[in-house]
Structures are given as C-alpha cells and as structure tokens.
C-alpha cells in the first residue's frame, strides 16, 4: 500500500512528489566502509526529523525504490578516499538503489564525503579538486543561502547567513560549465560568505568556484553540501544553524507538522 506525500508549502506545492510506504517517513543514512559521520548524522535526523524513522543502511545492501522518503550520504572517508574521494564508493551496491530513488524523485542529501560520492555517481554536476591550499581545512565558516525553493532550504530565508563547520581536503568545487560560460549556476544553494553575507575570496576556505558550498540538481531533489549541518545543531557545540537545513527537510517530509506550525 502506498500513499502520496506532497509538499504543501506554497512555494513548493507540486514540485516534488515523494512516494513512500505508509506510516512515518523513513530516512536512510548510508554507511560505506570508512564513513565516519554516520553516528551524528543519524542522531541529528532522529532528533530534528522527529516524525521520521531513521535506518542506518549498509553499503552492500540494496533497498526498494519506495522504501525511503530521503536518503542521506554522510561524511567520512568512504573506502579511505583511495584513488579520489567518492570514486570507489559510487560502485557500492547501495548506489544502484540511490540512483533509482533519485530517478523516482526521492530526496537525496550528500554531506561532505557524501557530496563527493554524489558527484562521482553523476547525481550532481561538477567535480571536486583538492583544496586550493592543498591542505585539509577544519574551520567554522559562514554560508549564504541562495535559494529557498528547494526541499532542503525551505525553512531558510534568501540571503540568510548560516554558521557551519567544514572539515575536508577536497572541497574545491568546479562546475562542468565551459570556462567562457559566465551564466550564474542555477543549482547553487549555499555560498561561502563573510559576516555581512558578501561572497569574497577571503571567506572562501577551499577555492571553490564562485564560493560554492552546496548545490542541487536540475530537478531539485538531490542536494550536496560541504559543510556539516549535523555538527551544528546545538548551541552547546558552537552553532545551531544546521537546524535550518534539517527543519527544511522536516517541512518537506511532514506536511501535518507544517500545518501545525502554521497555526
């Protein structure tokens, strides 16, 4: 038995149709060998998407296309980042299911290493180079929200500045646009910025093109970001701004909750 869960937020109405089995929406957090952020990602999903059930899904498993409302690929070093970040993980059996899930319009989020896997899998456009510094960077950064018409940023404001931590060696994003093509990339959701929201070279921790920190695909159901919102979900830990991204997902997944909030 299936039910259709539809967004009811006015801007998002009808944009995404997520087919899931009856009951609470299920979230998959995928674990590859070498994934190392699965624990805190599951914790954040369970705490912040409290209407959802969360499964840790082993990379060697496949899952039915209608099983999950959203699939999260967490951070880490899948397969030790051997060869290139994400290059081996994309061949894991679970990625067949992630591809089918995305093709059916299901939501997919890739955080840090998960973003790199999504790029390698072709679910998002572009590629990652090593950071311009050629060093790993672990820092708190500021990111400007560029779009709120996505299921992942619906609870944010355009231009809102989020304080989030990064921790990566390969976050220097390049799009596949021709160098001569100067059109702004439509899929950009987050950009590194300064405290006043300006995208500047000093605010860019890794040399990413146009300060890009997060993107969605053309269809808008696959989201990749380098910062770690799951590490910024409590003021005790330095910032609760990551909640805006989880709250967005909650809005998307649980329309009754949205209605309750609107009251």
């Amino acid at each position, binding site marked *: 038995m299936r039910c259709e869960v539809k967004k009811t937020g006015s801007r998002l109405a009808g944009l995404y149709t997520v087919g899931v089995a009856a009951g609470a929406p299920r979230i998959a957090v995928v674990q590859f*060998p*070498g994934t*190392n*952020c699965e*624990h*805190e990602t599951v*914790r*954040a999903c369970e705490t912040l998407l409290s209407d959802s059930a969360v499964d840790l899904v082993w990379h060697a498993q496949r899952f039915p296309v209608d099983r999950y409302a959203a699939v999260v690929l967490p*951070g*880490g*070093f899948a*397969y*030790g*980042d*051997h060869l290139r970040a994400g290059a081996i993980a994309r061949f894991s059996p679970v990625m067949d299911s992630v591809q089918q899930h995305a093709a059916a319009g299901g939501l997919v989020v890739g955080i840090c290493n998960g973003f790199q896997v999504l790029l390698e899998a072709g679910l998002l456009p572009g590629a990652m180079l090593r950071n311009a510094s050629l*060093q*790993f*960077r*672990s*820092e708190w950064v500021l990111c400007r929200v560029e779009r709120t018409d996505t299921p992942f940023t619906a609870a944010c404001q355009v231009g809102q500045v989020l304080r989030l*931590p990064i*921790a990566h*060696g390969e976050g220097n994003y390049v799009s596949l646009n021709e160098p001569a093509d100067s059109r702004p990339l439509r899929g950009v959701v987050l950009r590194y910025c300064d405290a006043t929201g300006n995208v500047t070279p000093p605010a860019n921790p890794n040399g990413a093109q146009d300060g890009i920190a997060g993107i969605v695909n053309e269809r808008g159901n696959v989201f990749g970001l380098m910062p*770690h919102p*799951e*590490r910024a*979900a409590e003021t*005790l*830990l*330095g910032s609760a701004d990551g909640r805006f991204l989880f709250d967005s997902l909650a809005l998307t997944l649980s329309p009754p909750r949205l209605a309750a909030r609107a009251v």
Partner: protein
Amino acid sequence: MTLATAERTVEQHLRAFGLLPAEYGQIVGRLGREPNLVELGMLGAMWSEHCGYKHSRKLLKLLPTSGPRVLQGPGENAGAVDIGDGLAVVLKMESHNHPSAVEPFQGAATGVGGILRDIFTMGARPVAILDSLRFGDPSDARTAYLLDGVIGGIAHYGNCFGCPTVGGEISFHPGYTGNPIVNAMAVGIVPHARLIRATASGAGNPLLLVGADTGRDGLQGAAFASNDDPEASHRGVVQVGNPFLEKLLLEACLAVLDSGDVLAMQDLGAAGLTSSAIEMAARGGLGVTLDVARVPRRETGLGAFEVMLSESQERMLLLVRDGRESAVAQHFARWDLHAEVIGRVTDDGQIRVFDGVTLEADLPIALLTDEVPAYDLTPMPPVGTTDAAARSTHAGPSGLSDGLLRLLASPNLRSRRFAFRQYDSTVQGNTVFGPGQAAAAVIRVEGTQKGLAFTTDCNPRLMLLDPRRGAEQAVAEAARNLACVGATPIAVTDCLNFGNPEKPSVAWQLTEAIHGLANACQVLDVPIVSGNVSLYNETAGRPIPPTPAVGMVGLLDNVSLALPLAWQPANTIILLGQPAESLSASEYVPDSKVFPAFDLQNERRLADLLRALVAAGQIHSAQDVSDGGLAVALVESALAANIGATVHLTTANLAAALFAEDQGRAIVTCAPQHLANVLAVGAQHGVTATLIGTTGGDQLILTDEINLPLTTLRAASEANQ
C-alpha cells in the same frame, strides 16, 4: 650450537639487537643454551627500553596510580577511570619520536594510529586526540620539513579515522634539533561492561590475528626506538599507516566485543606479534603457542624472524572462546578483514613459535617479561645549569609595545591555527571547545549532562632549569587549564621523553622529573593511570631537554557551564593570583636562570577557586596566565572574541607585570555587578583577586604604554601563515 657465523660474530649480533654481553650471559645461563636468531630477535625486542623499561621501571613505581575512580592503572594498554553513569574514560599518551625524526609524515601518522588502537583495545570508542609536539630551531630548514610532515601525518590519520583532534601543543627549542618529540594522546569512552583487558585465560583457547596483512615494515622498530641515533637507522624501518583500515578494525572490534566471545584483546604495536602474544600470556600467567605459517602476509619470503618482529600496523590479537572462532571471524568478514587462528594459549609458561611443523623458538615467558633486568641509575646533577644566586638583571628589550608584538610573532607564541585548521576537530558532533577556544579542550559526554576536558603541558625551558619543579609545573599548569573551563582533574597520562639514561646527568633529570610528577599529582590529588617512556632521545650525543609531557583529563558535571577564553563586551577583567615580580625564565627574557614563582598549594587554591566561580555561573571567561605572561593571555582572549579591553596595572615593574611567567595565575571576566562577589569568593579561597580592567572596543590598551588595534595584534600572531 652458536650464533657466530662466517658473517657475524656473537658480539655483532648482540649489538644489532641492543643487548649487552652481560645480559646475553644471563640469557644463556637461564636457557642452558645459546638462543637461536629468532629467539635473539624476540629477546632483543622484549629487553629493549621501549618494551622492557630497563632504566625506568624502578622509578616509575614512585608515581601515584590509585584513586577512588581508577578502574585500571598502568600495566594494560591504557588506563581507565570511572566517570559515573556506568561509563569509564580510557586514556593513554605515547611517543613516536624516533620514527618521526626519520619520516615525519608516517612517523606521526602511525603514532596516532598506535595510540588510537591502545584505546579501542580496551573496548572504548576513541573520542579525542591531542598531540604534544616539540621541534628544534625554527629557522632550520629541517625543522620546517619535520613540522610540516608531522602535522600532515596527524591530520591524515585522525581525520580519516574519524576521531576529533581537539588540542595539544607545539613548541620550539634548539635542544630538539634533530630529535623532535611527537607524543600523541587519545581518550575513549566505554561502558563498564565492555571494558576489556589483554589478559590471557583458559589454556587451549585460540588466538586470532585480525586486521592488516603482515609485511617487513617496521621490522625491529622497538630496538630502533631504544637507539640514540635515529639518523643511523634506515628510513624503511618506519611503519606505514592505513587509517581507513584502522577505522574498519575499530568498528569490527567494538562489534565483536558485544558478542561476549572475546576473552582478551591486545593490539600489535612495538615488537609486533612478539610483544602482544607474550604480554597477553604473561598477564594471565600462561603460555602460548604460535604458528607463523598461518599469519596472512602481504609479501613473500618472510621467515619466523620477520613475522614475529614485523611492526605492520592495524593488527590486533584476540583471545576467543574455544569453538567461537568462526562466529568471531564473521564480524570481521563484514568489514572485509581477515581473522585467522594463529595459535593457542597454553598452561606451561613457555612461548613456542612454529613455522608449520618446525619449532623456531622456545622461550620461558618470564625471561621475556619479569626477568628483564631493571637497572639502577647513577644520577648526578650536571654542573652549572641552575644557579639560584644569578638573578637575572636583564631588563628585556626596550619598548613594551614592540616587545608584545615580537612575542606574539615568536615561534613559541604565535597562533597555532596553521596546524589546528588541518585537524578535524568537530567530527563525532560532541566538541564544545576545540583548539584555541578555551584554556582546555572540552567535549560533551553523549547521553549525559557531563563533559570531559583535556590538556597537555610541559615547558622545556623550566625543565632545563629544574627538572623536579619543572615536572611539578607541568602537572600544575595542566590542572589550572582544566580548572579554567570548570573541570576537576580525574586522571593523568604521561610521556617521559629523555636522553640516554646511562648518562648520569640524564639519569638525574629523569629521577628528578619523576619525583616532581609524583609530588604534584599527590598534592593536586590526581592519579597517573597510564604512560610511556621514551629514552635515548639524542642527536650527536646531545640529549634533548627533559620532557615529561603531561596529559590530563578533567570531568565537568554540567558541560553547559564550561567556559571559553573569549570575552564578552563590557565585562570586568580580574587577575587571580599574586602580581608578578620577575621576568625570570619567561619567553620575554628566555635566557635568565631563575625558576619563576611557583607553589603547589597556591595552584591548588587557585584551581578550587576557578571551579567554584564556574559552578556559581558568575564568570564569563577564564584563561590561565602562562607562556608570554599576562599580556599574551589578554591578547588571546581578545582575539578569540574580537573584543578589545582597557587594562590598568599599578606596578613599579611594568615589564614584569605584563610578561612575567610567575605561576599560579589566571584571568577571569564577569559582569560588573558580580565583581564584588567574585572578589569575595577569591578572598574566601585565599587567592588574591585584583580588578585590572574592562573589555570592549577594538583596541587593546594596556596601561599607558601599549595601545594596539586588534587587527595589528592578529596580524602579528598570524604572520607567516
């Protein structure tokens, strides 16, 4: 039978294995025969300083190792202390100096890998890494190479493994040129029920070797680490780390421990399979039989000698219940890891090593453990290093403002951001204060209100002046750092880095330092539960400055009260402790020969006061006054918050007030309405508390002499980054 061959005399063999002729005589007498080469290799490794503590064993007995929280003191892979809620904290610090001198990236990486294994060998999940690093002359090109490699190696291993590097220290002193100090500390958390030891039990139970395949890497590393000339050794001796494999090993080991089929677990570190099998058997008073033919290899042509002494990383030895081998192996297969039965525990106290059907070694385990000689040292203080009469009259450089900027840009005081930003400090999502955010690192204990605080300390300048008081100072500074965030010290792990202990002056330093550690830990009421000794740290016959690195763990009952060092605006700044008197042995006047003011009872009162103030919730920041003195402590708090201050000091000696490193001091800030209460609580604790200024603005104004914008201070602190 004799060891002598056409190629090598017995004496040459002994030199290669680091054994003295008299020691060889003891061995032959005990065995009633000469050992063969495999046995000699095993004896050389187990009788090395690194494994056998020949020169430090007697002294280490002086250290206080017990306390109401202690669940496991020294003698296991790591110490363990109770933190309530059915949880224990596991901690250990270990050196990887010699490998890092030769191959800094892999040396440091495998140092981190080794210490992480020590933690999860106890069943604990590692939750924090700290690194205590010392390098030589900062202008030396080799120093830059070593610094770069060591930081890169630590980042490589810790980041991939997924354990946050939350703190540590980096300092420079010409005495470390050619022999850097790389001490890695790791901390883990374990439910009491999963705490496991590496003590063999049950003759007949099988031993499983799990994790990486065995190769020639690190062959004879333990003997190499006990040699005083790393340059003479071969770079290929240094092991190569694979943090990805270690992450798999961690997950598989923790999962299999929950099955109840594992009786003991011991990682393979220095001296590889030899020491892990022997130590596990020795703790249980049992014996062991191994078949090296069953050990999975990564290369061909390895004999019993190579397999027994290989230091290939990411391997673990498990003792499991007889008949449960395949159930245990399944846990490892899920993570694509081997688990091969390579031997069994026996009840006759011998270690027997077979290669298939050939007996390659047959030695009494007692000979390899309890009977390792323990030497008395012949300590003799060096002539002319300390001279209490020679009070420094050095006035320091003229111009206090320039002096401050010079200090901020100096190698020992400049910002450590260049290193810390390469370490993932927020993975696991529990980091409250990472590097540079507070006087000590703080993490939350998941599922509780509690927090853990960590720090590492040791000041080589003070150690050279007086190794006993210097060691006391290291413990006191660590306790002060923890008190600043509001934590109570619960355990110490130490790493004793010294030169060749056979030299009377080094023996004296080691003896004095251990007495100092013992005394300070007793006064401050904190046990030493684990540690490591690294001797023979010398270059061209010159010993390093005595360096007993102290790693301390503190407990916070309510982690949300933990204090940062960053200020809030319009707060009152209060100096706790006696006003400073002399610039002796400071970064400002480093060549003076007088130990700064320091008193353990004062330290205890100050720490109690800091905790009382944090618990009362009336102060907003705390920072201890240490390297660089009051001025540098103020700058650090100002830059962390990007908030300036105006500070007044009434003193005849302004340079001393600003830059002296007299101990037992801290600065705290509070809202103006709480000032009277903070001063009163200070008086109750017998600690002098002095109002010295107010936070606010974007300049740091220190008396009439210094008025510098924060941007200028930051530029000086972060120059060359």
